[in-house]
């Protein structure tokens, strides 16, 4: 098969803001691109977060055929959260992607770097604090074992990284997040399955 490649259509067109008058097909395409890429990144990130925190929008009880709002304990038969995580992640990612089409491209790239870095730093900071409490602390440091305490170094680290990442690099790697985030999410989710199933 032979086909022409549209070499001229650069990635920077995703950023192009409308000049005057009605939106052209190029602008519509750019917006749909921004929406689709942001949705892909946000969905993978949020699904991983919701699964790890066990935040389903609803719980399905397959034996009774009941659907209950948010997370519910096992009643008759096992509860199913998977549908709830997917729906909540899809709705949240849809909202994020809609917002992404409204803000300037440069802000969007920075916000993506910020969110992805925060998603890595926050659990890393919490793990670091837990290691410190168990192996290093010479005082009763149990008060440090909190997601909110871990949030402080995580936000500071994320802010520093986001500030120092050059705009050109943030733009160049933006579509790469589409693969980095789902693969990273699968590593995290796969790791969480090691103890309950694979190393049992």
């Amino acid at each position, binding site marked *: *098969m*032979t*086909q*022409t*490649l*549209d*070499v001229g*259509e*650069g*990635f920077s067109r995703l950023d192009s803001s409308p000049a005057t008058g009605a939106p052209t097909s190029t602008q519509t*395409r750019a917006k*749909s*691109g921004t*929406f*689709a*890429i942001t*949705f*892909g990144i946000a*969905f*993978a990130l949020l*699904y991983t977060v919701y*699964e790890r925190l066990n935040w389903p929008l609803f719980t*399905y009880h*397959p*034996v009774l055929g009941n659907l209950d709002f948010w997370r519910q304990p096992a009643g008759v*038969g*096992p509860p*199913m959260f*998977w*549908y709830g*995580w*997917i729906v909540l*992640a*899809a709705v949240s*990612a849809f909202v994020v992607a809609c917002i992404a089409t409204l803000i300037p491209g440069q802000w969007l790239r920075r916000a993506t770097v910020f969110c992805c870095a925060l998603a890595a730093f926050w659990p890393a900071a919490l793990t670091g604090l837990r290691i410190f409490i168990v192996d290093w602390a010479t005082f009763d440091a149990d008060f440090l074992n909190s997601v909110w305490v871990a949030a402080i170094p995580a936000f500071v680290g994320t802010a520093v990284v986001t500030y120092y990442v050059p705009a050109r690099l943030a733009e160049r790697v933006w*579509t*790469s997040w*589409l*693969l980095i985030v*789902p*693969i990273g*999410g*699968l590593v995290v*989710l*796969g790791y969480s*399955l090691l103890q*309950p*199933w*694979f190393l*049992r």
Partner: protein
Amino acid sequence: MNIIFSIIREDTFWKILLFVHFLLAVSLLAAVTLQAVAVLMPARQMAGNFIDRSPVPAASYAALIAVVYVLQALMGAWIYIKYRTYVRIPMEQLRHFWTVGSFELKEHVVTMGMGLLPAYWYFWRQPLSAEHDGVRRWVTVFLALSVWYAFLVGHVANDFRGVGS
């Protein structure tokens, strides 16, 4: 559901669904594998502005792959209800922990693939952008790997308790 079960037996109904799930899986597997092979094959430069991409028209069935992927995920989500009660519980009791774990990971893999579908569809829209050549290739490969993983793990789960087991 009660109307259906008054016509056919409940286990026959679920086995029909599982078989349709299998047929969709094979179709999706074939399409997405062909497309992944097409994008991984090196492009040969031809005369003028034309580039010989591959012997299969990879872009023409991107929309089909996206639609079948969603249908397949919905079908899997439906059958998952039966799996959770009828298959997974005896699987745990018989200590088939690797199979349960692999199936848990399959849920996540398929979900991640679904999240990428809007971007996948966008990257394959005509005219294809050379700027997105790399990300289009790897998103397609990711989807192909996710479908292969889901197929193999689903097949193992089916062998435990499913059609023909």
